[in-house]
């Protein structure tokens, strides 16, 4: 097991290196010029060049990348004289748009995204898996048809529609939240009620989309598992339907769901872009989208991309290890 883990961790590091290099490469071939962005009226070629120098984009790409790597280990220095300052390691860089070390921005944004992800995850797993089991149990009858309808609605409505509907027609129309408090971040430790008030709406929006998928998946997994031979054996032993369902069927049906859930959760940790945007949550998704669409802020883009990638890659590893616990056939001797 230790050897297996060591190998997987080495792969993870390699993948992250490749991801970071790719971001730099992609950025360098983009038609957008971040140096030209910030100079509204005073935009002359020499001003743009000065800007490019300021942003650190006038040195060769490999050098930019090397500075980035070094910054991750020892931090980075910026400016001269009175204007000098330092970003502590691991330093992804400095955002000239937000005037803050990117690592600090990430540290502030992550708890928001984490809150969003955890709440939505719990909600959709409970709703999705339960509905799926009910639908499978009452296959082709009314509960199943209702669940199928729910699946259709949930999977076909994109989050930007459900999010806007939720915000404008429910929250705003019925005055369920102070419009200025939408997306206000408070720590769950100091103000749990306020924290829930902020997140309850985006949780529901996200959970709707995911729960629908999980209902469908759980339903088909349970139905499929129910037709397995070992379920027939269990019944032939004299076990009641209830015990067969809970102890035998679900145990087997849930395994692939765990994998999916882990990966979905990891994907959310990188930032739920649309939901965060609509509900004005200052999470990693908002940070990333602003950096990509508006600011062309390379250090922030690199940081959010790497972070999102590492969540997924690490979660892959965790899920694989977890799966071995669930399914003995997969265990490495």
């Amino acid at each position, binding site marked *: 097991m230790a050897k297996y883990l060591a190998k997987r961790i080495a792969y993870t590091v390699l993948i992250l290196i490749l991801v970071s290099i790719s971001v730099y490469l992609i950025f360098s071939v983009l038609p*957008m*010029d971040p140096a030209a962005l910030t100079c509204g009226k*005073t935009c002359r070629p020499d001003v743009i060049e000065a800007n490019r120098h300021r942003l650190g984009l006038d040195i060769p790409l490999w050098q930019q990348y090397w500075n980035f790597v070094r910054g991750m280990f020892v931090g980075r220095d910026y400016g*001269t004289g009175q204007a000098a300052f330092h970003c502590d390691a691991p330093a992804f860089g400095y955002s000239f748009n937000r*005037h803050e070390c990117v690592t600090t921005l990430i540290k502030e944004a992550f708890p928001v995204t984490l809150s969003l992800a955890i709440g939505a995850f719990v909600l959709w797993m409970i709703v999705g898996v339960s509905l799926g089991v009910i639908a499978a149990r009452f296959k082709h009858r009314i509960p199943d048809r209702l669940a199928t309808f729910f699946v259709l609605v949930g999977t076909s409505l994109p989050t930007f529609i459900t999010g806007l509907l939720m915000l404008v027609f429910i929250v705003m129309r019925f005055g369920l939240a102070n419009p200025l408090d939408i997306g206000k971040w408070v720590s769950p430790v100091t103000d749990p009620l306020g924290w829930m008030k902020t997140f309850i709406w985006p949780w529901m929006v996200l959970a709707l989309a995911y729960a629908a998928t999980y209902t469908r998946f759980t339903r088909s997994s349970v139905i499929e598992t129910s037709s397995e031979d070992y379920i027939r054996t269990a019944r032939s032993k004299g076990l009641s339907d209830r015990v067969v369902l809970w102890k035998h069927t679900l145990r087997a049906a849930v395994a692939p769901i765990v994998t999916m859930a882990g990966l979905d959760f990891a994907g959310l940790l990188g930032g739920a872009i649309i939901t965060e945007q609509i509900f004005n949550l200052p999470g990693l998704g908002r940070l990333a989208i602003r950096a990509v669409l508006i600011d062309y802020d390379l250090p922030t883009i690199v940081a959010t991309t790497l972070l999102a990638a590492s969540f997924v890659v690490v979660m892959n590893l965790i899920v694989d290890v977890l799966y071995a616990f669930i399914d003995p056939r997969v265990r490495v001797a």
Partner: protein
Amino acid sequence: MSVTRKGRRVLAATAASALLAGSMMAATSTSVSAADKTGGTLLFVTFADQLDHMDPARVYTGRDIAFLNTYLFRNLVMYKAVPGSAGASLVPDLATNTGVPSNSAKTWKFTLRKGITWQDGSAITCADVKYGVSRVFAQDVITDGPQYAVSMLDIPKSADGTSAYKGPYKGTGQALFDKAVSCKGNTVTFKLSRSVADFNYALTYPAFAPVKKSKDTGDKYDVKPFASGPYKIASYKIGDALTLERNPKWKKSSDTVRTPYPDTVQLRFGVAQEVRDQIFLQDSIPNAINFDGGMLPTNIRKFFADDSTKKRRMNVYDPYVRYAAMNVKKVNCLEVRQAVFFAINTQALIDLSGGSVFYGDPGDNPVKPVLGVDYTKTTGNIHDSAWKITGNADKAKALIAAAKAKGGACADVAARATDADRGLVWDMAISATNQKAAVLMTNALKDAGISVKFNWIPPGQYYSTVLDSTKENDIATAGWGADWANASTVLPELFTKEGGFNLSLNWDDPAYPAFKSLMTKALNETNRAKQAAIWKQGSQYVMDQYWIIRPVFSKTQFAWGSGIGGVNYWEPQGNYLFPTMYVKQ
């Protein structure tokens, strides 16, 4: 049609308020006692994530400057905090008077008054003023702000055209700067490279405000500036809010400009546009003020149609003239430029952007009437009998025919313009409104036989593209507002080769030399009335040459909650008269 992101402020020197259309400004607060105004929180809401800049040397939007100058930063001089044209006059703030020029306005002296302090109680000194002005020279750290210090101070240039002084962080050329800006006790002396009779108006920019060196954090000063005004920053979280609280070290006795009414001033970020509009439509938050001014088109119409909101809204002319610049280098034929002008359906364009009530009127001048003495009605262009607000295709066709008959360059341009495969190319920033406008233009010009194609540019890259003379196409939309009430900040900037915003690329036009000498004369004329006369000539000249077409005198709207009093329009800033706003107690 996009206006430059960094706006300008405008001075009204005459009773230009007669030109203000629509609902008028709210009543001033003379009848309310000070006690009934003091306290509470002024709650500004905006859909933006942050203030573009809080560093005084980098802020360049009229609104932000007005906001910051009212609460956080004190300048040597300020605009008078009163509504109407009187608000365009200068009053001393940190200085004892509005400046003493000498040496044909090439030298200016200001003396700091007593009792002026920073938020930590330390005195504001002449050295602080000097340091503040010097920062803009550090072009690799301090970006986006006005460049007047660089262009006006008497500091030599390097071979590459940039200033020989590289700012206080590097220190290169510090001695040169120290000669141009010097301190003797409490008096600061500015030495300019040429006569600038209205130099003290430039000093209303926070770029000329003092900065305390020990509190300067370079790029980070943009989010954590040190205050000299009646408020200081309690907290600033991008995407969340900027909260200002009272600055106990500010002394009322030293400040004739400001009376700080609210206990707290808050600017809330990230309020989605629809949500923001609903706040004012429903008056759900009485102490809220729309920092963005206007609203989404359907909402603004609803808001203004509702009689109950009469006391919570304004519809005024903003400082900008919006126009389409003709690239004279490429469209080097006057008749063709005229043809395009006559062909355009101006009415449709105005209606597209909200109608003349909310959007504005066709203009006849690159200078707006609010500039007072520098403006006069021109002849020709929209006053030409052949001009129709919905477009005059016949007149345009006749002009094209005349161009073709003329032969030479005119015939070439006319041929190109009428060629369906080539046609004229129009630079436009990508937006939903622009795309609709493009359709209107195409149709209107087609009626006149002129073919037009559009070069769509992502909004963030628009100005950097069209300001590049190698990249600009035949026509480019733009907007411009004077920096202060003098056409010196309009005509030379837009139409001379040295100007910072010349999209007309007109310096090779045979008509240019005459214009240039007009400009030189005006810039060096110290008699204001004489100067105004020359500006008026210059405007007429520009319009006659059709170096720009289709100017629109645009308007802007404002909305606020019922709990706010003292809301007025600050003409020179083109935004709220922040100093008079208070929360009704």
